[in-house]
Each structure stands twice: as structure tokens, then as C-alpha cells.
């Protein structure tokens, strides 16, 4: 069956749309790799991340970034690495860690949307339960939460630019929640 090769389909077909002043774009170019930190292995993992990619271990609810790679705090014994998607990403990370952490590719468990434009933070008041005040949640902050009964990770790239991650299986419902929120915002405040 050499003639068949499998092609990946973006969870939301690579959605790219504007609602009012706000832009939603599926980021199907990113990989998400979970690194579990063994008991008493935090220093070793931190070391590996730093020496291989210059990535400091992120503090809780924060993202550390080096070049095109970022590390998100996931749990007390877990870091999530976000990097451009290439097929060998998981093995690259595994090689870098060389057994110091347990590596699991989570790319396909999540859909990633980038949401940007004036008024995003205000629009998110009707969607995201987190306190997104820039003092509390500056660029480089990331947190897991739930919205409209769906698990989500919100990551702030800039003042008005966020990544939202949610489960790939319910990506459509997630997008629906997001677009409704943004259209309300557009109706209530057309200029963002």
C-alpha cells in the first residue's frame, strides 16, 4: 500500500476568521509535548531544558520562552513544551531529556486557537473565568481553567493576543463558544 500516505487534518480545518475587530486563527503549526518530572528529578529536567534550548523552568502559571520554543508550567511535576510542529518533535525532546523526564506527545489532544485584536480581554470577560487583568495575567502567563464546561488553557502572548487551547475532540463546541462571545462583543462594542 505504498501509494497511500496519511495526511493530518486540522481540528477546525485551519479556521481563520474575523469577528468585529478580533481575529481567530487555528494554530495547527504547533506541537505540545508533555514532560513529566520523575520523583526528585526536577533539577535534572530543568538542567536539560536550559542546556538544550535555553529554556528556564517556568514558574506556576507562567511560560518561559526561548526562540520559538516555550515551556508552560503544567502541574507540580509536569512541564508542557510548545514548539513548531515537526514529526520528530517528540523524539527530539525525548533525546534531549535522555531519560530524565517522561515524554508524551500531546499535540493531538489539543486544538490551539490564537485570538487577537483590540478588545480581546474585554470580550473574554464573557468567556474566561480567570482574572485577565494585565497586572495579574501579563504576557507570558498561562493557566488552565474550564469555560463553558470545557477544559482550556489560556496563554497570553501580548496585551491583546492570546492562545486558547482546548480538547481536540470538542474543538467545534469550543469554537462555537468563542465565536458567540466575540460576536456579542462586536455587537456591544463595534470598535473593539
Amino acid at each position, binding site marked *: 500500500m505504498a501509494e497511500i500516505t*496519511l495526511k493530518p487534518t486540522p481540528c477546525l480545518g485551519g479556521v481563520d476568521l474575523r469577528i468585529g475587530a478580533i481575529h481567530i486563527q487555528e494554530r495547527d503549526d504547533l506541537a505540545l509535548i508533555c514532560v513529566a518530572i520523575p520523583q526528585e528529578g526536577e533539577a535534572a529536567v530543568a538542567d536539560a531544558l536550559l542546556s538544550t534550548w535555553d529554556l528556564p523552568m517556568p514558574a506556576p502559571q507562567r511560560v518561559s520562552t526561548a526562540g520559538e520554543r516555550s515551556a508552560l508550567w503544567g502541574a507540580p511535576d509536569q512541564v508542557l513544551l510548545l514548539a513548531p510542529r515537526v514529526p520528530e518533535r517528540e523524539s527530539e525532546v525525548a533525546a534531549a531529556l535522555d531519560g530524565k523526564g517522561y515524554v508524551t506527545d500531546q499535540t493531538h489532544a489539543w486544538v490551539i486557537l490564537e485570538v487577537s485584536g483590540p478588545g480581546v480581554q474585554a470580550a473574554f470577560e464573557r468567556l474566561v473565568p480567570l482574572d485577565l487583568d494585565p497586572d495579574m495575567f501579563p504576557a507570558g502567563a498561562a493557566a488552565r481553567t474550564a469555560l463553558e464546561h470545557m477544559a482550556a488553557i489560556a496563554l497570553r502572548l501580548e496585551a491583546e493576543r492570546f492562545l486558547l487551547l482546548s480538547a481536540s475532540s470538542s474543538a467545534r463546541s469550543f469554537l462555537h463558544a468563542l465565536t458567540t462571545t466575540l460576536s456579542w462583543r462586536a455587537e*456591544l462594542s463595534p470598535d473593539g
Partner: protein
Amino acid sequence: MRVAGGLIDRSRTVKFQWNERWMTGHPGDTLASALLANDIRLVGRSFKYHRPRGIFSAGAEEPNALVELGKGAAREPNTRATQVELTSGLYATSQNHRGTLGWDWLALNDALAPFLSAGFYYKTFMWPKAFWERIYEPTIRAAAGLGRLSGAPDPDSYAHGFLHCDLLVIGAGSAGLAAALAGGRAGLRVVLADEDFQPGGRLNAEQFEVDDQPGAAWAAETARLLAEMPRVRVMPRTSVFGVYDHGTYGALERTIGGGPRQTLWKIQAKRALLAAGATERSIAFPQNDRPGIMLAGAVRTYLNRFGVAPAGRVAVLTNNDDGLRTAADLRARGIEVAATIDTREGGAVVATRGRQGLREITLASGKRVKAECLAVSGGWSPNVHLTCHHRGRPVWREDLSACVPGGALPPGLSVIGAAAGTMTLAATLREAHLAASTVAEALGATQGVGDPPRASDESAAITAFWHVKGQGRAWVDLQNDVTTKDIAQSHQEGFRAVEHVKRYTTLGMATDQGKTSNVLGLAILAEVAGQSIEQTGTTIFRPPYTPVAIGAFAGRARGKEFRPTRLTPSHHWAAENGADFVETGLWLRAQWFRRPGEAGWRDSVDREVRTVRSGVGICDVTTLGKIDIKGRDAAEFLDRVYANAFLKLAVGKTRYGLMLREDGFVYDDGTTARLGEHHYVMTTTTANAGLVFQNLEFARQCLWPDLDVHLVSVTDAWAQFSVAGPRSRALLSRVVDARDLSNEAFPFMACTECTVFGGTPARLFRISFSGELAYEIAVPTRFGDSMIRALMTAGEDLEVAPYGTEALGVLRIEKGHAAGNEINGQTTARMLGLGGMVSKKKSAIGAKLSEREEMVREDGLSLVGLRPVSRAVTLTAGAHFLAPGDPADMAHDQGWMTSVAYSPELGHSIGLGFLKRGTERMGETVRAYSPVRGEDRLVEVCSPHHIDPEGVRQRG
């Protein structure tokens, strides 16, 4: 009628309909002020006696002027006209009358009032017994109730929102505005919410001055200043309805100009100041409920804020100085004040006339005075409601004749202004300013707060006066028609605790929650009981402060969006290929795939089953929970959470695992595969995926915190397909790259990581739910759609076909595999015939308690197969088993049918079930009795493994 002045925009006219009549008002009007401007006095009917009623107040406390707003599906019953912002085209009708508003047949109740006193219904309607449901109750119900729901789905949308602030100020009257201003200047994040569309509170209703400006102008100016502060958010039309734990406040915003109809905000506030003002109350005197009898403060509101006089001739009845201001303000506008009756000078009203609108009052002296409006002030009750939402009780203050916040307030909440019992303006402004400054200081704000606004204190002296004794009924609760006599009778019958009085008389239980009547009722009860108001106590306030639409609480979680929908990776392909979908938990799964020419679902399912039994079929099984388990101690961990042994599972092997709850009942089952030295992947049932994960986390963090084991849920990461049937190996050999799939090289229960179709990573398991030679193959989710298409292409000549959940069910029932119908949380391993799997050599979760005496009884239930004695008969699930000849009752119940299917291979209906001593009863005939379905069948007990009992096929 309109008089000069007010905050309405007279340059524009707004047209609206009242009871099908077009009328006009102005922007800035409420429906109530516009009705009064149009000289409408009769607006509604009371609950019990259907007494004619008019507008009584000018705010949230309104008991009488409830209307149906809008028409068709948008009809909104019980809407307080006093809070409805007048908009162009607004459509409102009166409610709760049979016949017209003016001629209501149910007003007959009023004539029967002596027989309808408090609690009369508890003492009658008992004979004849059968009449209650058939006659009495339907009659009572039809008469009761207020407005009508449309019966159609609410056409609007509602949002939920989340706000976080340092300081929440509830109410934007003088107190709230001054507090928000100080907080805003200090640099705090402030939310200022007011349920009115116009900030200012009483300042808009009075002729006071602040900072040498008219109060209303100061309020408007201050609101504008606040709106310009970047960290302050001014929220008009937003009522804070409830105080929940740890600084969470519920607030409802009515949005205008687009977006959702309403937004339900959860406000998380470090501190809150309640500046909710006070509510005026009435005085009980005979026939005090007529249209035209209004609160004195409301009369001022209509006059000063809306430029409306409720009538041309107004009398004033008051027990305090505030009421006297009504007379003064009326006179200032040239309205005739027919009488000013001050109870402190011995004045009283002893009778009134005018059935559909007040015409005349009789004074204590016997003098009759013509008046179309009587403005009554019995004093003001601070709006303490929100301070009681944590079940605190207010305290009585004799000097104010009012309850003020007391006891333990919700943490973080303080009270200012009239809500705190500070009844005069200058004092309120100072108090508010100080309170906000204190908050700012406590939260570490460093900017200055400025000076408090200046004003002078008005006089607010009061001497309690509650009711005028005399002939005729004197109303306390206008909406629910509770009179002073009802309260007395309640006491007489032993209902003496204030909460008993409430429940027996329904005092304060109407849509206004007794905002104007509770304190009056208490005072009357105290008098009847011969005790102080303090001893009498109050009933408890509960959220919401004002009623909130159910739709708003639900937000957008309705219709198809009630819960998220999870789609399998092959969903689109399945939809293109004739699938019907079924909800399994949050997932939508293909139930079967229709093909042209198939008459019904059974045809499709039978075909799919046959395909798996004789060829090869594919089913998307992504929905099963998948958990990657990694770590040095992963094996040890698994051995503790599964009842059967897991320590010795070799790399490349898969094992069926039985998971018990700690109480020894079966929790979940699935397979766990060992993909590497420290790497396992566990599958769970679709339904329990989340719960199992949670329990495993509990075990890992709380029970054995030092085991090195890590869990990652990968359910959504892998698209997993079952490839089942004798030709499955042939198909997969074309799919999997460079791997020998022969029985020797890749035997039953083998597993491996591999690649497919020239390089896509995959996981392959040789496991079987159908009992056939079968595999499950997983690829990363985004490849799932491509994968199903590729599998179908690759297997075309093998006549591969997809199968759905229904065929999956048939296959497993034929094989006697337990699933959700059998593993329902009440099942032991023994019942499933898996008792032997529970290892006695370790103390795995659930092992110990699975040994309890009643769970190991010899005569317990066990899983059996069933087939109809008469093979043509169809079995249905849920039937109970009875021994033939036994009576059909609980005492002779012997179990039940859990699952059924039509077996295309056997050509008849088959079932699984739990039967007492089942395993010993093979070949026996029992009754499968299902009276709710009208069925009674004879079935033969057999092995649950209807097909291939030795399991030869899956190993082949």
C-alpha cells in the same frame, strides 16, 4: 399627569402599548411613570382576592404593578412596571385576571374573603377524597399563579461573565457614588453596580444639593467622572442579587443595544460596600390597598425624577419627617395637598373609598377628604437583604424604627448609607467616603482619596406607628393579600414563630419578597404576641435580591450547546457514509451505517455484525479512555489499582484489567498494554474515563505519594480503530509498516508501537471485544480522518465495512462480555464470573471489602446467557426473572435481563442477565417478565458466551 421638571428627555417621544392601547412617554421614563403620566391608575390584580391595584412604589419593591411584557415567545410575565425602562414599541399587558382588568370574574374571591382567611385550604377540600385532584386542586391552581409563560422556547440568549475587582460598590446612590469615587481616586479596581438605568438613587428623587449642585446633577457628573477612570467600571442596569462564599457576588446586567439579553456576572471582589439604600413601607389602615395609595417617597420620585404627579389632589399620611417632604415637594409643583396627616400628631386614616381608584379618605376625626392619591410613609427599612445571605440576622434599632445590618456580615462586606441606617445625606456621604478610604488603605492603595462631597443633613425623625385599628381589612402584604387579621389569626392558631407566620399566612412570599411589608408584619405580630420586635425576630432573606430570569442562570448552555459535543476523528467520514449518530456521554458515535436498500436499522446492524464475523469491520473506538502511565513504579502502581496481577506483564503484552472501587464492587474494566519498560497505556470505558483518571491521581498523590508514576490522559491524542474479523490480519498487514503480524510474531494480546502507511506513528494492540481475530490500531488524532479513509481503501477488496456501536453491542453480547448495562456500580466480580481474578495475594484497591459476607453469598446473582424458548420471540432488556409458577412479586424476584441483541449468527434473540445462582442453572427455563412492556416470555438459561465459548477465534 405630567408636571414640569424631572430627568426625562422631553425633546423626544416614545410610543408604547398598554393593554393594546398606544400611549406616549419620554426617554428616561419607566413604564410605571409613563402609565401614571397617561393617568392609568388601575394596573393589576392582587393574588388571592383579585383586588384592583395601582402602582405603589417606584422601584424593585413593587408589589402591585406586575405586567406581562412583550408578546409571543418573548412574553415576560410578572415584570415590575416600576423597573421597566420605557423603550419605543414596548408592549405591556396587565395579568392575573379572568375577563378584563376592569372586570375580573375572580374578584368574586374578595366577596368570599371571610371564608378564605389564613390557611383556610388546610382545613377543607378533604371530602370526598377523590375530589382533590379532580376538582378542588385544578380550580385552585387555575385561579392561582400570576402571569403566563408563553410555553414556547425563550428566543433570547444569555451570557455568563466574570469580573474581578478590589472593591465592589452595590448601589449608585449618594453613598455608592461617593464610595466609588474615593475608591477610584485611590486607584482601586472598582465595580459600581446599580439596578437602575440612571445612577443617583434617591438623589434623583429628591430636591437635595451636593457640592452646591442639584443632587441629580452631581450624581450624573460623578457617574461620568467614574466612567472615565480606567480602573473603575460603572454598571447601570445591573442588580447584585446574591452574596456567595469568599467574596463572590452574583449580578445580573440587562444589556441594551445588542449582545445577549442579559449577562449574569460572577463578581469576585476583595471587598464590597453595600450602598443599597432603604425601602419605604406602608402603614396598615382599613382598605389601604386601593389604586392611588402609594408610598410617599415614590410620589416624590415620580414628581422629581419623572415629572409626573400621580393625581391632581394628593393627601399625605406619615409617621416621619421624610413623608412631610412629599407634601412640600407637591406644593412646590402646584399640586393640591388635600391633607397632611401626621400620626405623631394623632392623625390617622380610618377608611378609604373608590373601588378602582382612590376617591376619598376618612380621617380619624371622621372627616372625609377627597383625594385621588394618598402618599403613605410608615418609615424606611434599610435594604439589609444582601447582608443576610450568609444567614445573618439584622438587628432592630428603636430610634430608626428599623432593622439594620447586624451580626456576622459576609466576610469582606460592609454597609454604608441608608442601607446601614444612616438616613441623612451629609452623614451618608462622609460615611461612604470613609468606608472606601478604609478599604483603600487595607488593600495598600497609596493614592489620595480626596475630600468627601459636601451636603447638609435633612431631618429624618420618626415615631413608630404601625396600624390603624378599625373596621375592614388592613393590608400588610399587598401582593399576597395578607391582612393584619391573618397575622392575628395565625398567632391564635399557634403559628407564633415568625417563620411559622410567614409560612401560614404567606406574608412576604410573593414576588416582592415582602420588601415593603415584612417589617410591618413583624411589628403587628409583635403587638399581637405582646412582645418586642426584637423578641419577634425576622424571617431570613435569601437570594436573589430581585428575581432573576432562569435563562440568565443557564447562560448559553442550552439546546445543542447544553454540553460540549465530542466528535470522533472519523466523524466526518462517517457522516458521509450513512452513519446515524448516538450520544454516548458527551461523544457522538456512529450507531450504524445505512446502506441503500436496507429497510431499517436492524438490516444495517445485522450486516455489520456478519461482516465482523466473516470478513473485516472497522469501528472507531477513540472514545474509550486512554491513559499513558509512565514511571519507574508504574508496574507496582498498576498492581495496586487493578484487582488482578500486573507486576509480571511483559513489554509488548496487553492484559485485561479489572478495577474495583474500594468498597469491592466493580468499577471499570479495560486493557492495559505495556509499551515499554516504564510505559503502559491503560484503557477505560468511555463513561468512566474522567473518574478513573481522578481516582488514579488520588492513589498516586494521596495514597502512595512517593511512587514514581505519572499519568497523562491521551484519550484525545489518539484516533483508535478496532479492526475486527477473520480478515483483519490481512488488512492490517497492508497497513502496518514492516511488521510480521502472524500469530506467532504478534499473538493474541500483543501490543507494539509501530508506523503505518509509510511512516505515520501508530500503536497496535491485538485485543478483541468481538471475539474475532481483532486488533486496535491508533494513530495521532489529526490523522484519524485520513486513516479511516486509507483503511477503507486498503481493504476494499476484502470488503471491509465500518460498524457502529449497535453492532459493537451485538458482538459483545454474543460473546458474553459485560459492559455498562452489567457493570453499573452494583456488580461484584463474582457476579460477572470474574471472582477468581481478584487476587488474594495483594491488598489492591477493593480487594479487602470485596470479601464481605453478603458479597460472597452462594445464592448470589451471576451473569448468564438467555435465549427465548420459542426462538422467534424477541427479548427485551429490563425484564425480571421469575421461576415459572411463582407469583409475580418482589419476594420471588430472581434477577433481571441486562442486555439483549438479535444474533444474526444464531438467528434469534439472545440476552445477558443476572440470575440468582445462575451458574448452577444452565438449561433451566425461567420467566422473563416485563409488565411495563406488557411482555412475559419463557427463556432458557445458557452460558453467556453465546458464540465461540472456547475463544478459539480471537486467538487464531
